[in-house]
Every structure is written in C-alpha cells, then in structure tokens.
C-alpha cells in the first residue's frame, strides 16, 4: 500500500445554481499516475481549480501531503479581503491561495497554455523558482544573494537540459512551436520543486505522434523527479497508456474508478461518452 499524497473529501463546488463538482472523493497514491477523465463540461477543470486553490470549495476538504490545504463547511460564508489573503470566519475553514499551495509542493499546468509569453524560456523557468527565494527584495536587488542566484541559474539550466529545451534557452517563449510550449509549461511547473504535478489536458491540440512522445515524456519525468502525477486528458490513448488509476467524472459526480481496461469497458462510462443506446 502506498501512501496517499492528495485526498479530497466530499468536495462540492457550486456556481450560483449550478453544481459543477458534486461530492468528489479522490485519493491520489504517491508515485503513481492518476487520471481524471469525463465528457466535456463534467467538472474536471473545476475540480483542478479547487485542488490548486483557485476556487474555494463550497463544501469539503482537500488534504495534501499531511496539510489540510482547503476546508469548508456549509453555511460558513467566505470573504476575500484582498488579493491573496482571506479572512477566516469559521474555525473549520482553511483557505490557501494558489501560490502557497504551490510552495507546499503542488504544481500545475493549464489547459490553454499560460506561459509568460514575452519572457525567454530561461526566465520562465527562473520565475517558477522565485517562490522559494530566501533573500528579500533589497538583498536581491543589490545582488547580495549571489550564491542563491547562482544556484537558481544552475538549477534552471539543468532542468532545461534534462527536458531538452536548452538550445532554446534565450528565445522568447511564445516563439517556440506549440509542442515545445507544452513541454516548457511542464518544465516550468517542475521548477517549483513539486511532489505532485497536475497536468490539465497536456495533449490538447497535439497529433497522435506528439501525443505518444508526450506519454513517454511524462513517464520519464515522473521517474527522474520522483513525482506523483495527476492529469486531466481527453486523448484517451494517452490516458489509457500511462495511468495507473482513472477516475471518470460526469455531471460533477464520480461514475467510475479503476484501471484503464476496467474503465473502458464500464457501461456507465460508455454511456457517458457515447450517449445512451436508444434515443
């Protein structure tokens, strides 16, 4: 039995009258690749956003690596005070902003690539290391933390080498071809030093060959960086190839859980994807 790195308990997310995620209970075992699939509009990205702190769940608890990173119970009202800090109105509430969750060791990529377009590949990676910087603004400005900076630079170079992007080190990130941008986004996430990597549709817009390469790449970095991976994906070939465990979501609810084969032959899943037989 491996340990559970991330756990959601009864996580529910409501927008107005719409329940986007309904009583989600997920357990992500350490060192494995877990996938979350489901038809369009099933609530996958919302679930991701709740886990990474972008949204505060209407109800439920998220635990990561021994920390409760988000907790909320009904009837408690949340109040956002200003960008980044929240007032706790209720002792049951634990609210963390995405940046803090990232610093705890959870990194993510985005469905529609969100690189820092005007900055170079190298800068993109360096920025991801900024969260762990020890020197304050003044020290950093006057370059009094030379060792730290040097280490960051070396780490970034090493990382770029290991994902084969080093030859593009000083190019603008938006000038890279699409597949490489996806790769860079993953590399940037790795630079935050995560234990858990969340990938939101990493293969979106890729052709079958690129998708295959991506599958290899994900497995490779999982080994090199001893990661746990949690991904949302529509390319089923990719999901089926690399996942150890698959959750299937429809209408915000988990409708199936199992290995690739189990899920593929689950009637509920087939129904969710292909629709009911009679109509």
């Amino acid at each position, binding site marked *: 039995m491996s340990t559970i790195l991330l756990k959601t308990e009864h996580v529910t997310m409501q927008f107005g009258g719409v329940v986007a995620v309904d009583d989600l209970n997920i357990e992500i075992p350490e060192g494995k690749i877990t996938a979350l699939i489901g038809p369009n509009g099933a609530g996958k990205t919302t679930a991701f956003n709740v886990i990474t702190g972008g949204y505060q769940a209407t109800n439920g608890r998220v635990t990561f690596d021994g920390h409760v990173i988000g907790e909320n119970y009904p009837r408690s009202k949340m109040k956002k005070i200003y960008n980044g800090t929240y007032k706790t109105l209720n002792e049951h509430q634990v609210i963390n902003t995405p940046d803090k969750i990232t610093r705890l060791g959870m990194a993510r990529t985005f469905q529609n690539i969100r690189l*820092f377009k005007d900055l170079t590949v190298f800068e993109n990676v360096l920025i991801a290391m*900024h969260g762990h910087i020890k020197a304050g603004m003044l020290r950093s400005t006057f370059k009094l933390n030379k060792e730290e900076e040097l280490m960051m630079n070396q780490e970034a170079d090493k990382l770029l080498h290991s994902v084969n992007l080093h030859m593009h080190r000083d190019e603008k990130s938006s000038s890279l071809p699409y597949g490489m941008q996806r790769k860079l986004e993953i590399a940037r996430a790795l630079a935050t030093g995560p234990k858990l990597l969340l990938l939101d549709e990493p293969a979106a817009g890729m052709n079958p060959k690129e998708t295959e390469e991506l599958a290899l790449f994900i497995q490779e970095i999982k080994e090199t960086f001893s990661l746990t991976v949690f991904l949302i994906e529509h390319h089923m070939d990719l999901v089926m190839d690399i996942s150890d465990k698959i959750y299937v979501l429809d209408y915000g609810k988990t409708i199936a859980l199992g290995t690739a084969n189990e899920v593929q032959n689950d009637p509920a899943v087939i129904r969710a994807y292909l629709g009911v037989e009679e109509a």
Partner: protein
Amino acid sequence: MRIKRNTLLTTTVFALLVVFLYWLSANRMQNGMLVSVLQKGVIFALVAVSMNLLNGFTGLFSLGQAGFMSIGAYTTAILIIPVKSLDGVYYMNGVHPGIRALKMVVADSPAFVQSIFPFVALLLGGLLAAGIAAIVGVAVLRLKSDYLAIATLGLSEIVRAIFSSPQFDQITNGSYGLNKIPTFPEMAWGLIPSLLTPFIVVGFCVVFILLLINSSYGRAFKAIREDEIAAEAMGINLYKHKSMSFVVSSFFSAVAGGLLAMYMRSIEAKTFSITMTYDILLIVVIGGIGSVTGSILSAFLVTIAKEWWLRFFDQPLFFGGWQVPLFRTGFRMVIFSILLMVVVLIYRKGLMGSTEFSWDRLIGRFRRTKNSEGGAA
C-alpha cells in the same frame, strides 16, 4: 570582446556627459534654457521610469503618480525652506510651531549635517510616500485594471485636496503654496556643483530600479504582468509583489517630486493635478511601455521639444508679410496631443517597445543602413 566594447562605449558616453555637465555648470548663464530643460528632463525621467515600473513591468495601470510626487515635493519643501524665510512663506496663517522647532534644530547642527540635510529631506519624502503607498495598497491593489486606474487617480486627488485645504494651512500653507525653496544643493563639499545634483540623484535611483527589474523580484513582477493566474500558480504571492512594486514606484515618484520642488523653487497643489499624471503617461507611452531606456529617452525628448524646440509653434510666424495661420499660443500642445494619438493608434510600441537600448542593436542598425546604401549605389 563585444562586452568589452559595449562597456567601453557606455563609459565613454557617461564620461563625456559628465564633462559636458561640468562645462555647462561653468557656462550656465549663457545656456539657461538648456540647463533648465535638461534638469526638468532628468526629473521627469525618474517619474516616468517609476511609473513604468508599475504600469509597464508589473502591469498595474496606476494613475497616482502626481499624488505621490506631491507628497515628496511638499515634504522636501517644508523641510528645506530656510528658517529665515519661514515668516515670508507662511505670511498668511503662520507656521506650525513643530516645523519651526525642527528647523531650528537643523540650523544649529554641524555643517556636515546641514550639507546632507536636503538629501535626507528627499529620502524622508520618499519614505513617507512609500509608507502611504503600503497602507493604501492594501485597499486599492485588489482592484483590477481600470478600477485601479480610477482609484489611484482619485487617491492623487485626495492628496491634493488635503495639501490645499485650509485645515492644514500651518503646514502646507493651503492654497498659497510654498515658495523660497532652495535650489539643488552642492555635493561633496562643492566638488560637484549643484547643477549636477539632480542628474546624480536620478542616476542612483534609475540604477536601483534597473537592478530591481533585473533581479528575481523584477522577474516576478514581469510574470504578474504577463499572466497573474500563472504567476500565482508558480508560487508568487500576488499581493506581496504588487505591493512591493507600488511602494517602490511611489518612493521614487516622491523623490522626483522633491527634486521638482527644488527645481521650481515654488510649488502649489495645483501643480500636481491630473494633467501632470497624463503628461508622465505620455512620456511613458512615447518611450515604450516596459522600457526603462525608452522612458528616459522620451522624458528628455518630450521635455526639450515641449519647452524649447517646439516653442515656435506658439509664436506667430511670418513669411515676408504673410502670417502663417495656426501658429499661436497653444498650438504646440495640440501638435503634442496629436503626436500622442498617433503613437497610441499607429506606433503602439513607442520609441523602444518593451526592449532596452543596446549598443549591439544601434551598431547593427547603423551597419544595415550603410549596407543598404552601398547596395543601392
């Protein structure tokens, strides 16, 4: 090799500049206009760079520059007006006894303290503005784009209202404003004449901002500009970094405000109106949003053109007996506004875009023109 060449070029240019400024200082009587526009230009270069730090590098569209400048200007002015001039300045309402007492202490202090006191005053003005920015930042920095713009603009107006209100007459001299402000002090026991002082102060400030922009924190600012959500997902605390940028920018705006007070010798709250913020924005836009060198270049160009070269637009112009139409008071500013609109609508990148000046590029461009000329011939 190339790096060495660039360093050499930069050093040479700066050395020539210093020599030129010394020459100007010695001949300032004959070159009054030049001295005036260069000093004003360098002061506006600092405000423009500090506005650019916020708007161009952190992506926070703030229009509060004039307000923070006024904080710096008033603080500096109040602190450095000589004791003997106090009664003349505050002739209507009298001066607050606390201010008088403070000035007496400074006046009695050793010569060295007195010689650096104007700089201390600039620093205090900056710190006060930074403190205020830190406090109001809690409120306004949660606002997005246009709301932030209007809130900071409002803030600037609030500051202006406070400075000109009769309730603070004994400190700010209300609507009468402050005058008899001493000009730039000399530095290093007279080795550096007062003409050079604003250039040196601004130089230090700009170097600081450049270092900041190129540090890890500066990269974090740029990340926020590019994509807030991604920046936050990379572990960057949005509020903390936005606040830093806001505080630093306000600090330097205030220092520039203090320098402006020394330059103008007299200030009133009206000086720091919305129009001043617009003027600074114009400089930043023309120079290129996101380029420090662009802002500096543009600050000099705009100031010199506006105050000097384009003056003739405002004078009636005659060819023989025929008076050229359009040329009269105000035409210069119309030309300027049209120029701004052209930049905004057509040359959206301004002079420099979001890139910095580099020798390599300049020389590269020079060579290209030469080659193409050669090709044509």
